[in-house]
């Protein structure tokens, strides 16, 4: 698995920092936002998955208990 910083591949970050001047970097990020692109990190995606599983399982277990399970 690639090393990440804040869920972003460190190689991508290094490439950005080394090869893109700050104004260009800002323009690129602005263009991503303008296109409505959401870049989802591993950390965020896994956290959302875990949260939804835990929420669903808690509700299911509570209903099981309430119905004699």
């Amino acid at each position, binding site marked *: 698995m690639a090393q990440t910083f*804040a869920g972003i*591949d460190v190689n991508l970050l290094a490439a950005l920092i080394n090869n893109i001047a700050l104004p260009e970097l800002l323009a690129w990020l602005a263009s991503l936002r303008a296109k409505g692109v959401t870049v989802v990190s591993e950390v965020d995606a896994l956290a959302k998955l875990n949260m939804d*599983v835990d929420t669903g399982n808690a509700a299911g277990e509570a209903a099981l208990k*309430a119905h004699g399970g």
Partner: protein
Amino acid sequence: MTPMQKEKRSQLFAITLVAVVLSGTYACHKSIQPATPVAAAAITADGIVIRLNEFQAALISYCGPAASCAPGTLDTAKFRSVLSDLIVARSALKQVPNGWQATVKTAWASVKLQLANWNGTQNPLLASAFTVVDALIGAL
């Protein structure tokens, strides 16, 4: 400040900026670009979990709050069995990122078996939630 320190400082600023802006886009927009294959797999799994949760919520509402499901709805033992299957499916989606498909399919087949003689059209919300999950898992 030396030129080296200035460079380090600008790099740190750039890293922070990227992290902040990208995390901001995650919260504000609908078009999704996974950062890595692991993120893509988690997003796919989460899509199924969300639908399973919707189906479960509709099922719980349909059964009602009493210890036994409301008359004319579902057999309470089958209701409990379906809930257990949903828990198994969700747990696999969380714990087996590279191999949850077989478990999810088996659990959903068990759900369908429990509901084999159930008239889902009695409750449009439950029926539509069932159809969505069935299509999603059928396409795996």
